[in-house]
């Protein structure tokens, strides 16, 4: 099932920092295929390369070796403007620290991707409000980040990730700063995006409970994928 080309495809991807004695291999010859509609959780020790992998998946960073292909197109060969357009339309990011613009209303924060998509002011506002309603913050559209709780800020960030109808949501420890009850709420929201809207989700987490929401679990160690399992509700099938 699925298309021939994977949606996201790492082929021998390495990402190195520094050189000589100080060389750090954040990703070390990683192969990975992610298909449309998957919900992938990435776990692993600190420093194992999870964030690096997600950043490269989202075109925020490029591999230093190997190929990253999006629907068969090598990302390294794309012009910066095309990468920007991909970040704008294909991917939605959710960060551990929310990364909302300070002193800017929830509505304007959510509308930001639409600004760069060239959407007119009225439609921006409409669609941003719609996204805020989806995450349950329709009444707080005027609030600024410092007037919102952590959980609410993360909901605004999710609305921002959603607003331009991305195919893929990339979340780097989205519940890392939240208590367990709020985490559960956020995880429900994220998993509903996958199940109800068919959005592909790739999520880094340290929390085993959060990882259980995903059907496929990757474990990273030292820049490599240690295990890649698909759980089918009943049990886990080992793939790698």
């Amino acid at each position, binding site marked *: 099932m699925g298309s021939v080309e994977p949606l996201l495809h790492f082929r021998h991807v390495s990402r190195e920092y520094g050189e000589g004695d100080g060389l750090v291999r954040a990703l070390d010859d990683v192969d990975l295929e992610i298909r449309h509609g998957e919900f992938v959780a990435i776990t692993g020790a600190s420093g194992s390369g999870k964030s690096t992998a997600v950043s490269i998946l989202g075109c925020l960073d490029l591999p230093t070796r190997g190929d990253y292909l999006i629907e068969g197109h090598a990302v390294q060969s794309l012009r910066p403007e095309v990468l920007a357009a991909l*970040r704008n339309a294909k991917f939605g990011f959710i960060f551990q620290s929310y990364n909302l613009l300070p002193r800017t209303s929830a509505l304007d924060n959510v509308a930001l991707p639409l600004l760069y998509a060239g959407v007119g002011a009225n439609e921006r506002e409409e669609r941003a409000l719609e996204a805020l309603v989806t995450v349950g913050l329709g009444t707080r559209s005027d609030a600024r980040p410092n007037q919102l709780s952590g959980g609410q800020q993360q909901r605004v960030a999710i609305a*921002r990730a959603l607003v331009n109808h991305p195919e893929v949501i990339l979340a780097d420890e989205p519940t890392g700063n939240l208590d367990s009850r709020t985490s559960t709420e956020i995880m429900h929201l994220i998993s509903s995006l996958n199940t109800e809207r068919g959005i592909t989700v790739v999520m880094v987490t340290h929390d085993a409970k959060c990882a259980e929401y995903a059907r496929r679990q990757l474990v990273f160690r030292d820049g490599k994928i240690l295990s890649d399992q698909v759980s089918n509700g009943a049990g886990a099938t080992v793939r790698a």
Partner: protein
Amino acid sequence: MNARSTATVAMAALLRNRLRSLLTVLGVVIGVAAVLTMEALGQGATAYIGSTISGMGSNMLMIVPGSPSHRMGGGATGAPLFTLADVESLRNARDVGLLSSVSQRSLRVVAGGLNRTTLVSGTSPEYLDIRSWGVTRGRRLTREDERQAAQVCLIGQTVKNALFSDAEPLGAELRVHGVSCRVVGELEAKGASAFGMDQDDVVFMPFTTFTRRITGSDRVALVVVSATEPDRIDDARDHLQAILRARRHVLPGEEDDFAVRDPREIQAVLDQVTGVLTLFLLGVAGISLLVGGIGIMNIMLVSVTERTREIGVRLAVGARAGDILTQFLVEAMVLSAVGGVVGIGLGLVGGWGLARALSLPFVVPVSAVPVAFGVSLLVGVLFGVFPARKAARLNPLAALRFE
């Protein structure tokens, strides 16, 4: 991202730091204000000088004894005064229309119980025509007065007010240096001259009366003529010069021992002074704008560093490097344009205030306003490019992780 949302984003960013933004553009404000004040003053002074010089009479030339290299007036150069015969020969010079001998002294004049020291001139009847000067009441001096050396005079408005506050001056007796004269006319008010002299503090009498009764000498220290047409002024000057050189036996190659002066020369000298002043103020403005520009660059660099994460977020949600570049460039331009507008306002107020203080007319330097605004925008672009490029070149991931 379109122009309007870019400007809105830039404006919002600047308003967040109102005080800092204002302090930053102070240099631009001062630079632009200096330019405008200077322009307003310069144009006011030019207008004023222009109007007073044209008030001296059109096509006028003045002939005085003494070498022309002694600027303005001269006098004590030992050159002989003109004779009546000299003057008569000048009257027939080509391109010369009207001519008047003038002899002047500062003298005490008395009317009733009041007295005043004023400038008394003996003039030919043509004098008022040459200077396009009229009488408001009474009559002018005539050829008849001249021929008879009649004891009559005209008085300026200042003299009238000082000596005849309530009384009727026409027909009244005025004693000039002990010589009794009848006031036959009141001169039109003329105001201050280009050098600030009160031109209404004067008494005119026939040249013959003045030389015979008061000075006792018929030598002439000043001849005033008018050229027939404005474009004949230079020719008239040449002819006057040729005649006088011959009559005064100036050898070829030798310098004139008299000077034919054109009031427009005063304009040229004053223009020169204004020019130097303008250059100086332009220098001040340039330095202020440079300092202002560096201030803008500095604050924009600070802003780029402060907002590195914001830039990271914008890049992560799809901003192109070009969007970031425009955003910061527009911010710098809005900043300096605001400085420009404030500076223009301040400069106009300053120019108005100075013009009032110096009792010059206030002229809005219309052409300088768009130039000043353009220059302030240019400062924003020039000094905004470097910080904006720095922002646009940030790597999205590094910017997001920036602490």
